[in-house]
């Protein structure tokens, strides 16, 4: 409420405004353009920087500071994957690394004060949500991509027949062909629920945490409407909530990364 342009807003309008995506029409449907720009932009910046670092990696001798940081990040992800999967893990590490880094950088936009973002983007946008992971589109896109990778991995490991067998003949094993046919729908429903719950839980957990955190930030910002004391008290609360998010932001990225890696690693196990 600190900027003059929104002085006439009621609190509910203020909150609604902060939680509205900037939308535009693209290829005949509505697109949350702020989410896409933040997601792609941050991804291009951070992965571009990592690519630059990768080009300057020295394979022998004393590594530089940039490389040391890069290796720290890589080994962190690599060790997590190594603990859960034996065999060639380069692909799983790549998936885990990408999800971890991208979610971490998108979540980190939470540390920008909500009204600073609003004022900065006001000249050219009616609304701007800086945290791309507080948009269900992003989290669902990532979790569905991960599940797509799980299905591809399952088919690659077990073959189409093997994977269909797993989807229809397990977990309830029929002793003969009649029992197998009777149990088939139950098995399929069971497996389908298991398969569908994975992306839903991944997406909703990340989205819920980020969205709820964003609402609290906006609510705390409302204190600024209560004069100087409100600004001071609200600032303290805002700082406290931001400090708490130093824990939440990497934790959510870590959980998403771990579960994605676990799901893909599980695709290698035969039932």
């Amino acid at each position: 409420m600190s900027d003059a342009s929104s002085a006439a807003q009621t609190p509910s309008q203020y909150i609604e405004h902060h939680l509205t995506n900037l939308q535009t029409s693209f290829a005949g449907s509505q697109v949350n353009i702020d989410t896409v720009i933040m997601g792609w932009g941050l991804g291009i910046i951070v992965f571009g920087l990592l690519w630059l670092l990768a080009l300057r990696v020295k394979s022998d001798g004393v590594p530089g500071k940039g490389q040391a940081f890069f290796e720290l990040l890589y080994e962190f992800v690599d060790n997590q994957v190594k603990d859960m999967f034996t065999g060639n893990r380069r692909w799983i590490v790549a998936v885990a690394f990408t999800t971890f880094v991208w979610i971490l950088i998108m979540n980190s936009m939470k540390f920008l004060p909500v009204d600073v973002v609003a004022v900065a983007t006001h000249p050219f946008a009616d609304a701007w949500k800086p945290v791309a992971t507080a948009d269900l589109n992003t989290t669902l896109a990532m979790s569905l991509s991960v599940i797509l990778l799980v299905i591809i991995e399952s088919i690659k490991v077990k073959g189409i027949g093997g994977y269909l067998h797993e989807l229809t003949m397990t977990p309830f094993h029929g002793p003969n062909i009649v029992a197998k046919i009777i149990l088939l729908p139950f098995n399929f429903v069971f497996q389908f629920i298991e398969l569908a719950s994975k992306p839903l839980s991944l997406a909703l957990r990340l989205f819920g945490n980020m969205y709820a955190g964003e609402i609290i930030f906006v609510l705390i910002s409302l204190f600024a409407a209560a004069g100087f004391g409100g600004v001071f008290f609200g600032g303290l609360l805002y700082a406290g909530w931001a400090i708490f998010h130093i824990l939440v932001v990497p934790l959510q990225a870590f959980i998403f990364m771990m579960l994605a890696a676990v799901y893909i690693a599980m695709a290698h196990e035969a039932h």
Partner: protein
Amino acid sequence: MNIGMTLLLQAIGFFLFLFVVHKFVLPPLANAVEGRRRQIADGLAEAEKGKASLVTAQKDADKLIAEAKAKAAEIVALAEKQRNAAIEAAKGDAKAAGEREKQIAAEEIAQLSVKAKEELRDRVADLAVAGAQRILQREINPQVHSDLLAQLKAEL
């Protein structure tokens, strides 16, 4: 909340980044990390080998020192033996020399006693003659043999 196009775009972004990470970002780094790990492992193995060779070298040195000590002890023992032998030899020589001296002295004594005996024998003959003269003086009547006595007197 409108789910759809945004989701698709974000998914495309995800796969794009995943492709870049898998193809370009991670391989050089993974190779570097793996290479360094191998290098460190090699270095540790080398150090282990060096340690082992140090142990064998120590063992060799110990053996050499022990051998040298044994040899030195042998030499000392030999020297002692030689010294003893030399002392014994000197003692023998001295004894032999003493023995010879003694023999020479004994021979001298024997010669002297023979000489003394001969002298004594000469004196005994004189004494016997003197004794016999005394006896003869008593047995013989001085009147009878006064002329003989006179003759003796004359001789005396």
